[in-house]
């Protein structure tokens, strides 16, 4: 008690100083986060609101704007949009079907102590992820060319299959696009799964070995459940990567248009409506629809990972 009294006079000037600093401490955090707030308002919130408004408008020129209610959305019920939705959905489906099991398998192999040269393999698988989409588009466009001599057609030739016109047919073009995506993203997903594998305690495998479990059993009952959070994460990024696919098709078909719309994705459709047809309203309606799809996927992911549970507790 008495010690407090003795200290009091000494505290007096300090208190004043602390008050000043307190103020600065209050302001500083906002200065630090200011760049994000500014960028968010100008380059995110404003564009989202503006595209939302445009989706209800008919825009014929900078001064010639008319509200037309839901008409842009009703106009989406046409075969081009259905086709774009279908192509995008198929693409997303196939990329997930390939880009989950294959990288998991590779990650498990590379993670095993028995595999030699795993550093080399890891780098080799990752290198495609370093390239711009144009490099991938260029290679796959030329390797899938219609001439008899192209890589793919000569491989077919070895098995006696006649050459194909790859980039003109629905299924063959889809195959080329999915292969392109696999080439670029295999290494990235592998890295995610590798880091997931490192989080699974080795004792689990050891005790399973003692119980006499074989490799397959261990994989199904320890590895897959252990990787569940990573699998959910990768599925999520694949869904919105797939639904927002644009550049892959743009580079492969040398522009937003493809023969018979076989490479027409939803974002391609936005691009066509906005830049080729000059119809910002219709393009915006597609954008808002796509935003809805992506947000639903995110909500599902957050629910599955228990995000909301954690928040409410």
């Amino acid at each position: 008690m008495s010690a407090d009294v003795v200290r009091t006079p000494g505290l007096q000037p300090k208190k004043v100083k602390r008050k000043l600093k307190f103020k600065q401490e209050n302001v500083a955090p906002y200065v630090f986060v200011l760049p994000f707030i500014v960028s968010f308002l100008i380059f995110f919130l404003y564009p989202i609101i503006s595209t939302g408004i445009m989706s209800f408008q008919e825009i014929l020129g900078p001064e010639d704007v008319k509200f037309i209610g839901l008409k842009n959305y009703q106009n989406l019920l046409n075969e081009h949009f259905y086709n774009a939705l279908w192509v995008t959905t198929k693409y997303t489906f196939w990329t997930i079907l390939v880009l989950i099991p294959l990288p998991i398998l590779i990650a498990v192999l590379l993670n095993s102590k028995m595999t030699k040269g795993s550093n080399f393999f890891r780098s080799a698988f990752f290198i495609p992820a370093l390239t711009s989409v144009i490099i991938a588009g260029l290679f796959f466009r030329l390797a899938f060319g219609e001439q008899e001599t192209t890589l793919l057609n000569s491989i077919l030739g070895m098995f006696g299959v006649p050459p194909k016109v790859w980039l003109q047919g629905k299924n063959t073009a889809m195959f080329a696009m999915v292969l392109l995506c696999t080439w670029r993203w295999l290494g990235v997903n592998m890295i995610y799964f590798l880091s997931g594998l490192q989080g699974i305690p080795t004792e689990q495998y050891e005790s399973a070995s003692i119980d006499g479990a074989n490799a397959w059993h261990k994989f199904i009952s320890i590895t897959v459940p252990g990787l569940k959070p990573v699998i959910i994460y990768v599925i999520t990024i694949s869904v919105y990567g797939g639904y927002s696919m644009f550049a892959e098709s743009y580079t492969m078909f040398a522009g937003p248009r493809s023969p018979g719309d076989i490479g027409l994705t939803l974002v391609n459709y936005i691009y066509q409506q906005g830049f080729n047809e000059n119809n910002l309203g219709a393009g915006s309606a597609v954008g808002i629809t796509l935003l809805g799809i992506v947000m639903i996927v995110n909500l599902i992911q957050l629910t599955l990972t228990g995000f909301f549970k954690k928040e409410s507790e």
Partner: protein
Amino acid sequence: MKNSKMQNILLSTGSYVLLLIVSLFCLAPFFFLLQSSFFPGSEMIRKGITFNVDFSKMNFDNYKLLLEGKDGIYLYWYKNSLIITLLSTVLSLFLTSMVGYGLAVYKFKGRNLLFIIVLIVMMVPVEILILPLYKLSITMKLIDTHWGAILPFVVSPFAIFFFRQYAIGLPKDFLDAGRIDGCTEYGIYFKIMMPLMLPAFGAMTILQAMGSWNSFVWPLIVLRSNEMLTLPIGLQSLITPYGNNYDLLLSGAVMSVIPIILVFIFNQKAFISGLTVGGVKG
């Protein structure tokens, strides 16, 4: 016993075969692009990318074209890519590290809301915003300028998230120590905390520079005139349905990839740590 030994040998042979096939699939495109870049574009039109090459036609002419072809336009593209990558990386690291640090170290009103907004922005694909951003860029006179390609995405939510995760682990004692020494909050950041975050800067520099060097969708929309294009967009503009530009296209593609592969070979860890921090947090 013998049986299970056989099984093991088969299994490990099988896994090496698989790994080799997949690495061939991953590396072959680089080999074939490099190979094709030594042949005249007319060969490419005739044959596509092929096993069936005619070595007598091999030469370095395509690489000479990089300097002279189409009035040296390729050099403009390279210069634009360098400028945009440099500016956007420096600016992005400076701004996003501050935001990440602010969100991690301070408790203030609205912090959680801001962080949730960062996550939401991270979840919305850029492609959805191309039309309204294009309109906005016209109003802001950003079309066909370097700043137009840089500004809209320079404060990357991913980088903010990365720096925040890193800064959360910083020792808070330094903060109080700095205050007692009479540092301002900004002084504490620039003199004490930022140096502690250097490893995070290393990883992010590489990821941001790579992202910006390879960036495709937004530059495709905002850059309009030929002399303003970046490498990916310039190369893209050479791909036409008539396929008449392969000479410049292939050598140009090769030269655009080489710097990134070199950086990767010397900094593999930084690439990988940049990807995995927080990425897998659900």
